[in-house]
């Protein structure tokens, strides 16, 4: 299995949509073949269309607010005493997380194809919140599927969705989390694909959704590359990019522009959710060696039992609480371009405490997983090593959980 240079990773799949010959694909009901093909044709054309790119960039700049900041975390750097620690503050983006890029692009596509309604799944609530924002902006009706457990634990985002006029549909099946929300959203699409567009909230699902999402979030690394050159005059010789990995959209977007660099120069570190220390359930299929299976239309490493039933996961972070992982990351893992590890619930909370103590930055529980590993490893690195963590979400949505786990003082300033 080999990663090709000079070709975007999203375009390295084969005719049937498989990366490395075995990850991804289109395991979908016959009914969805046609709408998926339509979307493929549309996207393949538009991604090379100058006017479309211009339109995208206009909304990215004026509405989402690009570029997001690239900042040095001086106090943390001093505290840790190793590498230089930096952050790409993607939570600056309109809405407070990277999910806005994919949501905006999907709404632009839906508009052009004449669809009036757009549906989407959400875990942490960001994908849903952003889709509801973009739908409102572009005059589309919006329906969001969300697990009942996640509705309870991510109330601020649920409120935002409703305020934007979206219909939030609670999903009560299975574990009542993201995995069930995605299933229910796909089922709704099966029944309504003639009038309705679907947005998948991460780089998961049938191949076209993986590609559109990866293409959209790549905005993050496009910006970062420019910012690095402005700051250091070049892409640093020792650069390490840390990102949490749920479905894998923020991490893929954070890395994409640097794909062709030697990993000795630009290393990618993906941090999955290990779940509570005491629990055997995790949401870290790449770290803990899960087998390949099919989930939501794509072949991927996924937590499952011997029969092929998908296993429930457990994580303090709703955004990472997913048994599968993007086919793109399976591909990056097996080609050894990226390295994957996990942080537990407790470790993520600890990292959140440290970061908020030393810096004026409040990463949500998802990026707190990445911060934990980055801070731990940075101690060992030389001073000319540049460590960057993608702070891809803001902790406002996690107020309830943080207050319950750490006490009031950690949420006061919200």
């Amino acid at each position, binding site marked *: 299995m080999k990663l090709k240079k000079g070709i975007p990773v999203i375009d390295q799949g084969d005719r049937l949509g498989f990366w490395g010959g075995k990850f991804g694909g289109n395991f979908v*009901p016959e*009914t969805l073949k046609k709408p998926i093909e339509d979307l493929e044709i549309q996207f393949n054309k538009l991604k090379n269309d100058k006017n479309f790119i211009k339109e995208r960039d206009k909304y990215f700049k004026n509405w989402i607010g690009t570029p997001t900041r690239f900042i040095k975390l001086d106090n943390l750097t001093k505290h840790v005493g190793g590498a230089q620690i930096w952050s790409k503050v993607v939570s600056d983006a309109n809405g407070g997380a990277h999910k806005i890029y994919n949501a905006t692009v999907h709404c632009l596509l839906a508009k052009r194809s004449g669809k009036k309604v757009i549906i989407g799944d959400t875990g942490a609530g960001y994908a849903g919140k952003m889709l509801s924002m973009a739908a409102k902006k572009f005059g589309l009706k919006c329906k969001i599927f969300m697990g009942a457990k996640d509705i309870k634990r991510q109330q601020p985002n649920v409120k935002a969705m409703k305020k934007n006029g979206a219909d939030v549909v609670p999903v009560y099946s299975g574990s009542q989390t993201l995995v069930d929300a995605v*299933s229910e959203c796909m*089922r709704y699409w*099966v029944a309504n694909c003639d009038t309705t567009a679907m947005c998948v909230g991460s780089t998961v699902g049938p191949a076209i959704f993986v590609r559109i999402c990866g293409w959209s979030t790549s905005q993050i690394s496009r910006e970062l590359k420019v910012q690095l050159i402005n700051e250091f005059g070049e892409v640093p010789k020792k650069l390490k990019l840390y990102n949490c990995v749920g479905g894998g959209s923020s991490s893929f977007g954070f890395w994409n522009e640097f794909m062709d660099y030697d990993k000795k120069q630009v290393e990618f570190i993906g941090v999955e959710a290990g779940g509570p220390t005491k629990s055997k359930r995790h949401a870290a299929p790449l770290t803990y060696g899960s087998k390949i299976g099919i989930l939501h239309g794509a072949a991927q490493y996924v937590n499952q039992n011997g029969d*092929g039933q998908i296993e429930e996961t457990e994580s303090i972070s709703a955004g990472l609480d997913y048994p599968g992982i993007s086919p793109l990351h399976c591909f990056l893992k097996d080609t050894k371009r990226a390295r994957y590890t996990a942080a537990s619930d407790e470790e993520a909370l600890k990292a959140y405490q440290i970061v908020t103590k030393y810096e004026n930055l409040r990463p949500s529980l998802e990026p707190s997983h990445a911060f934990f590993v980055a801070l731990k490893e940075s101690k060992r690195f030389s001073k000319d090593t540049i460590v960057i963590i993608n702070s891809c979400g803001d902790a406002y949505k996690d107020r309830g959980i943080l207050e319950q786990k750490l006490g009031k003082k950690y949420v006061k300033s919200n």
Partner: protein
Amino acid sequence: MLNPISLAFKEAKKEKRPALLTYTVAGDSSKKQSLEILKEISNYADILEVGVPHNTPVADGGQIQTSAYRAIKNGIKMNDIFKIVRDFKKSKNSKPVIFMGYYNMIFQYGENNFLKKCKKSGVNGLIVVDLPWPENKIFSKKCKKNSINFIQLLSPTTSNKRLKSITKDSHDMIYYISMLSTTGGKLKVSPKKILANYNKIKKISPKKNCVIGFGITEKTISNFKNTDGLVVGSQICKEITRSLSNRQNPVINVSKMVNKLRKKIS
């Protein structure tokens, strides 16, 4: 010699009626009970679809999901499902069996192992909901080699060009999904429209037995008497759920329902 599935269609044709296909979930609500249901309804149905329950079903509506989750919760495993079919096939009144499920279950078992086991247990056909054409080309060939019918699905969104390619690659039976819906949806398209699409398929592929499924219930079934076959699933699963919550015997109630369905098309 005709394979058992084609034979079942031929027998129904002799009686000038569509074949009746039922769908029940293996292990719903228990291994024993689902076997009893199969034995009872084979008095009236011509072909039995046996659902292989999966916990992330992207094409099933509420009723079938409820049945599937119930079966999984009661501990049903792939090998139990094979055993149910084997036991059923030993009974005096047995009918052809078609597995209906999702590809991950086959993938984890291993395609070759799975087919071997199907053959041994007496499974006659397979419907794999999320393995569409052309992704299913290699696997459907393997099925054919093992004398197992791989049943291709067609839907209202299938283009004419696709329709021709798919029917060309299909075996003796094809399955037309009546409308844009998950299983268990209300019939939202007129029978006339559905039959027009059905006739289009029959014109392209007159020799293959084409069944219609999704939205077929006691209420709607008699609109489709001039077809090769009809599938009823969600209404049966719902009847099992209803019986359980009323503390009645699902075996008796489901059997009554299938008897009625059969009468409506005879």
